């Protein structure tokens, strides 16, 4: 296990665990703080898996007490996790010959990395950040270009950045970068803040293409028991028999058309 800081408040944690063997992109683990004043486990997406080493990579932002505690973990420490949880990104929906566009916004960027590594079709990645602290930039670039011919042109058409302050790439959000660079997705995958996911959903509906969104909600159990983490669904959910699906077990990834966000 090791941990480094990627940018101000952003940490990169590798943990050794047997769960690495079964972890798929878009799934998450719930990490328990040791401090008993913070009882509930914190959901964190899988950023990358190393099956050979049996290790999972978690990249997270310090958002409060729990993540602040995690940021102090050092090599040799151990940490309690529950997982792997949820259904990941459906990679099989991206058929050979399709162009998949992968959108990550802010702390929604990390799971895009393992997704990119898991997709075998043509793919283009857009990562959105607040400012010039573009964490995971090199990893994403490498993943986007892994299957491409070594030409600069090919590489240049696989990875884009959008920043809110305009310091790198397109000024604005990921959808701005999609428009500016004339990306033409056949299928979309996205993880990021709610306004971004709403924009992705709208775009996908306009273009009539499938989009898979990774949603967030406050969780308690992580295993589908407490019904704390639901999102509104368009149809009556098969498990709950109401218009609510559990993000922890039925998600966190949903087809955009199925959810009311």
């Amino acid at each position, binding site marked *: 296990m090791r941990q480094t800081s990627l940018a101000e408040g952003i940490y990169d944690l590798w943990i050794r665990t047997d769960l690495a063997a079964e972890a798929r992109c878009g799934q998450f683990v719930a990490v328990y703080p040791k401090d008993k004043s913070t009882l*509930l486990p914190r959901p964190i997406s899988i950023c990358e898996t190393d099956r050979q080493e049996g290790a999972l990579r978690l990249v997270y932002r310090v958002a409060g007490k729990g993540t602040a505690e995690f940021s102090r973990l050092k090599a040799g420490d151990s940490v309690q996790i529950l997982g792997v949880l949820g259904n990941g990104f459906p990679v099989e929906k991206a058929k050979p010959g399709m162009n998949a566009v992968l959108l990550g916004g802010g702390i929604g960027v990390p799971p895009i990395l393992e997704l990119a590594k898991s997709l075998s079709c043509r793919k283009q990645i857009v990562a959105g950040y607040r400012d010039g602290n573009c964490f995971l930039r090199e990893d994403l670039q490498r993943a986007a270009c892994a299957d491409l011919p070594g030409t600069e042109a090919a590489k240049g058409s696989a990875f884009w950045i959008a920043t809110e302050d305009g310091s790198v790439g397109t000024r604005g959000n990921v959808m701005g970068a999609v428009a500016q660079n004339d990306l033409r997705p056949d299928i979309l995958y996205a993880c990021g803040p709610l306004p971004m996911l709403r924009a992705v959903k709208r775009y996908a509906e306009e273009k009539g293409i499938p989009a898979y969104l990774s949603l967030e*909600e406050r*969780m308690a159990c992580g295993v589908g028991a*407490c019904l704390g983490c639901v*999102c509104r669904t368009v149809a009556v959910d098969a498990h709950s028999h*109401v218009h609510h699906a559990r993000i922890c077990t039925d998600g966190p990834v949903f087809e955009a058309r199925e959810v009311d966000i």
Partner: protein
Amino acid sequence: MNTKVSIAGVEFKNPVMTASGTFGSGMEYGEFVDLNRLGAVVTKGVANVPWPGNPTPRIAEVYGGMLNAIGLQNPGIDVFIERDLPFLKQYDTRVIVNVCGKTMEEYLEVVERLADTDVDMLEINVSCPNVKEGAIAFGQKAEALFAITSRVKRAARQPVIMKLSPNVTDITEMARAAEAAGADAISLINTLTGMKIDVERRQFVLANRTGGLSGPAIRPVAVRMVWQCANAVAIPIIGMGGIATAEDALEFLMAGATAVAVGAMNFVNPYATIEVAEGIEAYLRRHGIEDIREIIGCVK
């Protein structure tokens, strides 16, 4: 060594149950817990029709516990009987169904639908603080509690547990009303009404504004209320509120509870129920106690 306890003629292999709403229908924790080793599984509240529950956020973590405002989302009694009950009946454990409703008629409809099923007991939730109508109103006035208890008792085929709210001035008054109306047992405590404010956003954390407090923070209140009720009524008590370990459970048993339920701490430790059951056995062995019934209510 005996760990069996009995409530209203129903025998439980050990006194450890799951608290309603914290264990789904049992299925969700199947990966962690062998349900055969539990005294009983108490289900999430079930209504006559599916309930959508409250908007999100429904969960807020607080010091030593959590607030929830699920709003009794449930798939309704039909789905429960077709899907969840057959699942639970595969196991050698008792099944207690938690029943919720907005009106007297809704409670009675669920109770009647369960009459021909092989569930072992009913727990009537008149104490959920998270639904606007009905529900808790029945649990905060002794006359209303008496009325619903007697109606449910007349309709029910199974023994009836009335689940009491701690959000009252005098819990013993409620316990006595339930007993007088014919309840076979009482369970307590349900959650304490609470609130959390996000000071950065100057907003309530929960969409419902208020939520029910559970977890270790409420345990001393719960132990006190169980002890008070044990001294006020003769019917058995199922105690709950912040149980995390066998020691916690033993406090409830010694205060007078015949059985205990583990709630929010399942979220913190999915193995909590099993650890509590094993820990109680270890305690009995360590102290050379032959029968668990010797310690029930031993602290006067």
